[in-house]
């Protein structure tokens, strides 16, 4: 039995409605408890800001395409190298660090849980291998279903239950966490070098539309009783005028679940553009947020862009090819048979560039215009909008109008004619930030019951203590203080152990992989479906028996078993 007592913690724990109360937190064997004995190890938080460990509900840090981003970028790798020291392995990389680099930097910022944004089922083993080497965060994997042949066939045949059964089988097989749709239909079209132009544009050969795929997957998601909702990267990412597509997509979403949203729309910044070309592109954040404000069934994350160098990577193959034609930089693409695609290119977001400046504004606008912070999660779609190490700067921008203005002064001068940002006076509160980085992602992912995202009794003792006193600091006027504090915790505690102390990781660590296993009746089990098996072995290049991810890959894991209505 190990016990820990954190004294004098100024706690913000939105899920338990605690906001700035100075209190003690007791921990026993990795869980938060009512009280501990006198022998407990004591940490004095000194009245500093203490929150549940941060949760990133959309980040690209593990798996085939992330690793390809590293593989193709030695120039990025040399930008952030550290030597082996104590418990810390050597690290390399800035926008796509090595797994250890990612894990240590997240931990230094107080993050203890992360969702990998996109995992191709066929290559799931790779993602899980990298999870093993991301030791200081608990991990989950969004599983890609945007171009899945048997699912599109089932949808085409009007058999949503079969589509749900295939999703369920796949999630169990690859130890995935949630349904991810990346440019649904578009990735299959990209198999022919094409894309879909709107949510009503049918996928070549399969003759289903993105709208049909989205709706079917939302329905399937609820049939399977999955903890998270469908996690959607809308069609038409990054295209001027795409806000129409986004709004139409939002209109498809029923209010299908009373515990959480029915659709999680990711990196919405990239989907909120007006105009008809790069010349007249403008922000449509107001319309997007109006829709969000009227639809509690939708939760978004920002996909904030920050200026500087980064690497874009997404399953959205055609979008990356468009970016390549724009920048003429190196371009990688990796289509995955029967399932999905992906693309990678390095980019530089420049404040001298009008389009980049507009993108920067839109992300902030989404957070400021969404009334309910539970509906808008802080993200950069790491590393697409910026590497996650920029989160502290984003927090400062959201909390301080003055700081925003200062930065706004430095961006392209025409930006103000194309975005509403300058007119927005809202300054987010400490609580808002706690919601956007802890409570909301936990709730949206459906992992509150697992003890994530809060500090109530029984919760996992994942705790971040930041070196800042919120009663003495006015964030509106102290952006630098805020950035410094959120860049490095005094203590990051994971499962009741101090894993990171002022930037230095103290333990080797071991992550937990969280995955779902929907229980499906025999009638709908793909293991006993001759048609499914026949087509599998005929069209995949891996035998069906070699496809499922074995137990060896998820050494410490937490399986969420659900009862499917199938």
């Amino acid at each position, binding site marked *: 039995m190990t016990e820990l007592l954190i004294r004098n913690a100024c706690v913000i724990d939105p899920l338990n409605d605690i906001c700035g109360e100075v209190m003690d937190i007791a921990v026993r064997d990795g869980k938060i408890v009512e009280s501990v004995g006198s022998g407990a190890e004591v940490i004095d938080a000194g009245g500093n800001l203490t929150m549940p460990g941060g949760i990133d509900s959309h980040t690209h840090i593990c798996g085939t395409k992330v690793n390809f981003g590293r593989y193709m970028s*030695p*120039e990025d790798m040399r930008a952030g190298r550290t030597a082996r020291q104590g418990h810390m392995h050597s690290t390399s990389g800035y926008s796509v660090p090595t797994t250890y680099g990612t894990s240590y930097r997240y931990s230094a910022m107080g993050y203890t849980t992360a969702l990998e944004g996109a995992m191709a089922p066929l290559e799931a083993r790779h993602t899980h291998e990298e999870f093993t080497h991301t030791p200081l965060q608990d991990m989950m994997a969004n599983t890609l279903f945007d171009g899945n042949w048997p699912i599109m066939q089932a949808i085409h045949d009007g058999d949503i239950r079969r589509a749900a059964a295939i999703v369920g089988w796949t999630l169990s097989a690859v130890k995935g966490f949630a349904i991810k749709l990346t440019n649904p239909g578009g990735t299959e079209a990209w198999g022919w070098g094409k894309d879909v132009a709107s949510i009503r544009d049918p996928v070549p050969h399969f003759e289903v539309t993105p709208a049909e795929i989205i709706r079917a997957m939302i329905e399937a998601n609820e049939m399977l009783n999955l903890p998270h909702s469908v996690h959607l990267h809308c069609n038409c990412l990054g295209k001027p005028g795409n806000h129409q597509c986004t709004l139409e997509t939002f209109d498809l979403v029923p209010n299908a679940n009373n515990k959480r949203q029915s659709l999680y729309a990711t990196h919405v910044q990239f989907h909120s553009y007006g105009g008809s070309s790069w010349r007249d592109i403008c922000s449509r954040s107001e319309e997007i947020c109006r829709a969000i404000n009227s639809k509690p069934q939708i939760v978004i994350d920002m996909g904030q862009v920050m200026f500087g160098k980064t690497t874009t990577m997404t399953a959205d193959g055609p979008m990356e090819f468009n970016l390549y034609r724009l920048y003429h*930089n190196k371009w990688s693409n990796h289509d995955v048979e029967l399932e999905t695609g992906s693309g990678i290119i390095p980019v530089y977001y420049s404040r001298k560039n009008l389009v980049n400046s507009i993108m920067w504004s839109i992300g902030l606008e989404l957070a400021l215009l969404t009334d309910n912070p539970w509906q808008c999660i802080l993200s950069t779609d790491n590393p697409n909008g910026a590497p996650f190490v920029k989160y502290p700067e984003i927090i400062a921008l959201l909390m301080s109008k003055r700081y925003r203005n200062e930065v706004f002064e430095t961006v392209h001068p025409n930006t103000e004619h194309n975005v509403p940002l300058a007119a927005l006076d809202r300054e987010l509160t400490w609580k808002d930030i706690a919601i956007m980085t802890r409570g909301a992602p936990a709730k949206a992912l459906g992992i509150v019951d697992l003890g994530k995202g809060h500090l109530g009794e029984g919760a996992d003792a994942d705790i971040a203590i930041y070196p800042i006193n919120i009663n003495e600091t006015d964030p509106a006027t102290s952006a630098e203080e805020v950035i410094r504090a959120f860049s490095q915790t005094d203590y990051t505690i994971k499962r009741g152990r101090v894993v990171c102390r002022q930037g230095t990781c103290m333990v080797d660590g071991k992550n937990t992989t969280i995955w779902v296993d929907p229980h499906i009746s025999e009638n709908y089990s793909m293991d006993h479906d001759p048609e499914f098996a026949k087509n599998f072995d005929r069209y995949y290049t891996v035998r069906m028996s070699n496809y499922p991810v074995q137990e060896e890959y998820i050494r410490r894991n937490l399986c969420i078993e659900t009862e499917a209505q199938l």
Partner: protein
Amino acid sequence: MKVTLEVKPRQKPHLPIEAEGILPRTFFEGADSLTVFRGNQEIPIGEIFAVTIEGDAGSVDDVEITILGDSSRIKRIGEYMDGGRIHITGDIGMHCGNFMSAGEIVIDGNADAWLGREMRGGTIRCHGNAGDYCAAGYRGEKRGMRGGTIEVFSDAGDFTAETLAGGTVIIHGNAGDLSGVDMKEGNLTIMGDTSRVCANMLGGTAYVNGTVYDMIPTFRKIGQEKVNGEPYTRFSGDIANRGKGTLFIRNYKYLD
């Protein structure tokens, strides 16, 4: 300030020494605790060199470092050099003058590969031969050398001035295969022969006074032109890469 570094004999003479600390600024600011790496051992500079320092310096430009003895396995001399002078009396190892932005390096002997990699400014003169990747870039980086001058008085190896993005490179002897490959900006002059010059070039200008063997077939021939009174054939390309570079070549042969 005159700094003399005389290379001492080593037990394993082939193991490289990495000595990026050896540059005028270090000695200007005081090099008492300067270390170098011998393989994975970090050791004081005195274990590798007999160090003599004479006089003072008012600025980094007053510092002249002279390296005596066999320095052919000593790497990264003058990395990030920003002023002053380094005189190498023998051969020098890889990566001499990486990222150099000002000052002068003179090499009496041969230089190993990556001489002046990603150089920004200043001058490097090599009186012997230069190895591969003279005046080139780093793996995966789009732009290589961006400024300054590198002059090699004998031959240079393969991939000379690869991804050149600025500055001037002059090779008085022959240059190896694929010199100027993926060049973007800047000037490359080869007084002798080379092969497949400026393949895939995007921009910049190159002169070859000798013969180009296996000339890349996707340059557009513009015509005959005189440069300093001498007849050259002028090309534009590389068309395969939408390039707008200019080549002036005395003689050339295709691999047909």
